[in-house]
Each structure stands twice: as C-alpha cells, then as structure tokens.
C-alpha cells in the first residue's frame, strides 16, 4: 500500500511534468506534486499527534472530524492556514493547541493531508482490490461449455501463458473488452493496446462483381475505407446498398456474450485464466 502510494505520487509528478511540457494544451489543471518523503514524514507526525481524534487515515475518529472533507484543510495553502489554526486549536470544541509543532512538521502534515485528499478525489489513482474470488474449475467448465471460448481460443495454444502475461484486472478486461479498455472514466487513455487479430475485415463488392477486401479503417453511411494487403488505403463512397459492404468482426462473440454473462461467470473465467501459466 505504502509503496503503491509512493509510485502514484511519482506518477502524478510525471503527469504534471507532461502537462507542463504540453503547455497545458487540452490537459486541464496540473496534477499536484507531493514529495514522497514529506508525505511519509507527515503521515507519521499526523498519526502521533492527530490520529487519536481524527483517525490514522484522517477520515475522522473519536471526536475529531474527517479532515479529507474539511474545508479548512482543503483550502489550506502549503500548511499556512493549517499552521495558523494549529497554533490556537479549537478549545471550545475540545481541540488543544498544537503550537509545539515546528513549521517543518506542519508542512509535512499538510503535504500528507493534501496527498490524501488528492488520492480520494482523483479516481484514476484508485487501486482495484483482490478480484480473484471465482472458482477456477467452474471457469474451465464455462470456458469449454457455455462461454464458447473454445470455439476461438485454446488453453494450450493462443492463451498459453496468459496468466503470467497480464495481471488479473487486465485479464478480466480482455474478457469483457477485448479491443482494449476504451471508455470508462478516462476515455481509454490508460487502455491496453489493440491485440493482434482484433481488427475487423471488410469486403466491398460492386454490382459488376469486382470486390476489394482488407482491414476496416472507417465506415459510415456515406463512405467506407479499408487497408489492403499492400498496406495502402482504399476508400469508396456509398449510395444506399451499393456497393455491398460486408464487415466481419472477429471479436463479435465477446460482444454477444455481454448480455449473457452472469457476474460469477466473469469471476470464474478470470480465476481459470490466471492459472494458464
């Protein structure tokens, strides 16, 4: 957990650098930067001085409010408002003064609290827990039976070693979203790349009988574009049913399964696939 958070902070820092390099063009506000050592020091200082009332995770405890949702903390700038507040405390509500804390300690506590607020409010940092709750044997039965996985895949062929190639969450994503995880909260920017063999193919046939085939690049009601075996692009205008356009999506079976899965099927299948070493 601790290690992951440090990695996240480093990731946030890298993102912020990237945003600066882009001159914020289209990037929105910059990701904040939290020095990992300061976060760690602040966490310890917080635990010793504040944790008893506000909880070790600052979400509130015996008598002390949740500080992740505290307007005073959220609005604090680098410990300044927090430091002013801690000098006096809130005696009317039973909170003593913390004037004994030196400025470096207050700065560290502020860094810790602001990083916790960032982690709570930035869903891209959320860590998915243990998803391996399924029954691998039931998953194997599903793989060979109702899931029809075996009509395209083989546990000893194309899927051999899949359990070591991907972590469980990515693997589960491959089952329900084989094209790579587009959509979701980040529009797929963190998604996995398109796997080989996942591209739709198209055949365009004219009334004369002449036809063209290749990888589908684009299709609308008015045009269709393909990449042929030479790697070149060919585009055609469409007028109703002419020319005839036939598209084959090799992943259609995955799409068709979405309305058929029970959640247990997905859990079991994931549990089975991680065993394919």
């Amino acid at each position, binding site marked *: 957990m601790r290690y992951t958070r440090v990695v996240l902070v480093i990731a946030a820092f890298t993102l912020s650098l990237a945003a600066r390099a882009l001159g*914020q063009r289209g990037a*929105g*506000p910059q990701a904040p930067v939290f020095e990992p050592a300061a976060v760690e020091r602040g966490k310890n200082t917080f635990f010793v001085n504040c944790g008893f009332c506000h909880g070790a995770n600052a979400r509130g405890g015996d008598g002390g409010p949740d500080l*992740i*949702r505290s307007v005073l903390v959220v609005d604090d700038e680098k410990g300044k408002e927090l430091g002013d507040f801690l000098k006096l405390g809130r005696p009317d509500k039973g909170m003593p003064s913390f004037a004994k804390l030196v400025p470096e300690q207050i700065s560290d506590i502020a860094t810790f609290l602001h990083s916790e607020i960032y982690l709570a409010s930035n869903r891209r940092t959320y860590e998915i827990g243990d998803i391996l709750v399924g029954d691998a044997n039931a998953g194997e039965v599903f793989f060979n039976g109702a899931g029809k996985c075996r009509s395209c895949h083989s546990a000893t062929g194309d899927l051999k070693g899949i359990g070591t190639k991907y972590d469980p969450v990515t693997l589960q994503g491959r089952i329900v979203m084989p094209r790579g995880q587009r*959509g*979701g909260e980040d529009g797929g920017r963190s998604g996995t790349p398109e796997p080989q063999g996942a591209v739709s193919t198209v055949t365009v046939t004219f009334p004369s009988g002449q036809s063209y085939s290749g990888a589908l690049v684009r299709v*609308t009601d*008015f045009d269709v574009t393909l990449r042929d075996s030479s790697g070149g692009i060919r585009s055609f205008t469409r007028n109703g049913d002419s020319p005839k356009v036939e598209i084959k999506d090799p992943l259609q079976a995955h799409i068709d399964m*979405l309305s058929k899965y029970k959640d247990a099927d997905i859990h079991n299948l994931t549990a089975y696939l991680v065993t394919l070493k």
Partner: protein
Amino acid sequence: MTITKHLRAVVLILAPLGVFGQKGLDPSALLEPPIDTWPTYHGDYSGRHYSPLKQIHSANVKNMSLAWIYRSNFGSAGAIVGGEGADEYVGGSIKAIPLMVNGVLYFSTPDNAFAVDARTGREIWHYFWKTKGGIHIGNRGMGMYGNWLFFETPDNYLVSLDATTGKERWHKLIADVKQEYFSTPAPLIIRNHVIVGMGGDSLDVPAWLESRDPETGEIQWKWNVTPRPGEPGSETWPDAYSMEHGGGMPWQPPTYDPDLNLLYVPTGNPNPVMAGQSRNGDNLWTASIVALNPDTGKMVWYFQCSPHDTHDWDATQVPILFNGVMNGRQRKLLAQVSRNGFFFVLDRTNGQNLLSKPYLESANWYKGIDAKGQPIRDPEKDPQVAGILVSPGSSGATNWQAPSFNPDTGLIYVGTSQSYAMFYLTDTDAHPQGYGAAERGAGNAGNFLRAIDYKTGNLVWKRATTVGAQGLLSTAGNLLFGSDGAGNFIAFDPKNGKPLWHASLPMNPSNAPQTYMLDGRQYVVVGAGDSLYSFYLQQ
C-alpha cells in the same frame, strides 16, 4: 389573462425604461418560439430543440451548402483578458449552443467567450478568463438579459459581459474550486433571475441551485439539492453528515413553464458516487427532476429517476416540456430520456408519473418499477470489490447532449449507447470518499440514434452511429439535424431516420445545432471542435 400575457405586459412597460440593459435581447423573445433569435441554450424555455422554421425543408435540403466557418482561437492572444487566476488554459471544444440575437452569435467554451457576426462568421470580440484551475471538461454557453451576457467558468465564477463590447461588467464567485467544484452550465434567464448551477463529484461536497440578480450579481435565493436535518427528504438519508456531503449537482441548464411559473431542474448523482454504504436510503433530491418556483427557489414537486444511484447516473438530462394526450387526456407533459436507460413522462403540473419505460435493451441493473414509477435498483449490481458488469456504463445510456422533441411527428430523438462497464468497489470503509470505486469500460452492444414515441415509450426507428449521446435539432421543415459520430453532420427524415443531406466536417459536431432567420434566410449553425459551421440554401 394568463401569466404569460402578464409577463409580456410587464416587459412592454419596463423595456423602454432601460431596466433590461438598454438594448439587446427583448426578454419577451424567450416566451416565443425561436425564429429570428435563438435567445437561450435550449432555444426557448421548453427544451424541445425544435424550430418552427421551414425555409430549409426535406425537399430542398439537398441544396443546403456552406455559408461560413468560424474557427475560434482559445487563449488570451488578442482577447479581452479577465480572471482571478494565473493560469492560461488552452483547449476544449464548442459544447455550447450559441445564442443568436440581433445578428450576433454569442457562445462560450471553458475560459473563453465569443461574439461572432451571424451573417459573415467574423469575430466581433473575444473575452478570455485566466483560471485558478478546476476541471475544464466543457461549457454549455451563455445566458442573455437585455444587453448583458452571463457565463460560468471552470473555477466557478459567474461572469457578466457587455454584449456590445465584450467588456466585463463584474464576476461573482459561485463555489470553491479547491473543493473540486467546477461549473459548466449555461445560465438561464427568467425575468430578473439568472439561474446558476454547478458541478463537482470528486470530494463529496453539497450541491445547490441559485438565482442571482442580473444587474448586481447578488444572490436572490439558493435551493439545496439535499435536505437539512429535520426537513422533508431527510428521512431518505441515514444522518446529517451524509446529507451535507451528498452531492447532486444541477449542471444541466433547466427548462421553464411560464404559465405554471415552474422551473424544472434535473439533478445529479449522489455522493460518494459509487460507494453507497454510508448513504443508505433513496438520497433525495439527487438524480431527480424537481419543480421550483423561480421567484423563491421553493420546491413544488419532485420525481426521482434513480433512487440511491450507485453508478454515476445523474438525471441531468433535459426535462422536455410539451403538451399532448396521455391516458386519454390532454396534459401538460414533461419527458426525460434519462442517463440510467429509462424514459419518463410526467404531468408537469404536479409531477405525477405517467410513463416509465426502459429504452436501452442492454440495461441490466433494475428489478422493476415501483408504484411511483421509479426504477427499483438491483443491489447485486452495485459496485463490488471483485467487479460487476453493468449496462450502461457510468457515461450512461445517454448524457447531457440535447435531445429533440418534434411536435409534428410526436417523436423524441436521442443519441444512445448500449455501453457496458466493470465497476470495482475500491473504498470499503464505512465512510467512503469521492467515487469510491473504479470503472473499466467493457464492450458496447451498439450506439443508436433513436426515435421514441412519447405516448408509449416505444422505439419507432433507430439508426446505428459511432457515437452514443449527441445533440439534435428538429424543424418544421420535416428535418432532424444530427450526426453519425464519424464527423458527418446529417439532415435526417424525422419520420424514418433516412439521411437526406450530409457534410463531412473535420470533427464530429460537439453539441446540438441551432437555427435562425436572418435577412430572410434560414441558417443552421453547429459547433464541432474549435469551429462553428453555418449552412444555408444557395440562392
């Protein structure tokens, strides 16, 4: 004498006195169907996105061609610069629907506002706002009162500009950006009220709608989306703390019935967004449609679209107002094609539910419909640590983009997505925070432009698209304007969805088109990416 007539009389008396900002938009224009103006985000108060114009019609639309293109320049260069912050954000796309008043188009994007000549597409002025931050996801555009313009910024200011010059009159703080509020709505003007909403889902903050004085910017009233302890609705929350942090952001421009004097506000999802364990209950008035008195901010009725939502399905889709026959009676109706995959029709005089019907075949999260017409959620489809597969994903069966109601066909047109997503509960604490869950997009069983019969909720036709939610406009010229998601701006036959005309743009349209008459010619204007595209019939 109806209230509308009263209003017009008041307007006629007051207008010459200059209380509406000397010139500019005659407020009575807001009470009429949009013809030679497009005076508000929705075109009129009804939210129908329907124009009575028919110079361009289904038989001649094949001759429609480009009038002009305006490419906006986001950023401070050459602009009138304002703002409280130090940062210059440059980016975004035109998610506004431009106003058109007296031959000038007015629209905004995050941190930018523009006036453009509606005849020529040439820029008249550009205002730029230096930001303190906030999520720069979009801006729906401006509101206009006399000669004063109003728009909201991502760092939560209401900014008022002089429409003639683009110079700032004042700006007022709406909410605190550090608490993760950000503001996207187009303000709605009702008489001397500027109706202002906001957004922000990330830090479990309270939501409200407010009304401000168009001259001074001072607050006239606030309506809290979640109740306070002891108030009606508080029984749908476990405690005061969960209400205070319950969210429900009203970020869609509302609609309004002048005769009933009711403002229809669709509200956002509750907080924490996807982890519901600290807010057991229905969580009123989140994910609801509420009717408010716009003079007092008092609630008159409500209908909840998603009791205890756990999938980020705010009900902030347009409440569409029209009159029609339901259950054998002529009624004043309100229809919403909601983000959770349900189509609702209400009696807008009292909120009575007349029809609730799922329109998304793939929706798998509900067990039925209760006696009030509200969907009954299946708790097994709440986010779980190990993940559950839900349709639609959090971006919804549809979203904020404007649908269209066409009184000539009796059909509601809407862009939809049969998306799926895995929802993983990540915060198992008794008091989770923020979203509390992670989402990973799954496959999609198909995006469609759909035509829905309001009387039955039945699908009349659908057409495959590569985009789900999309902005739409229908006209008395027997036309429906929309897109296919692949960059084609299309005029469809509203009766059957057949394309009658199209133009391929560099970017797909980013919200609904609008239309107006100017010098005897009908223009159709649509925003796509950083540009406005204007079309008319060649003469």
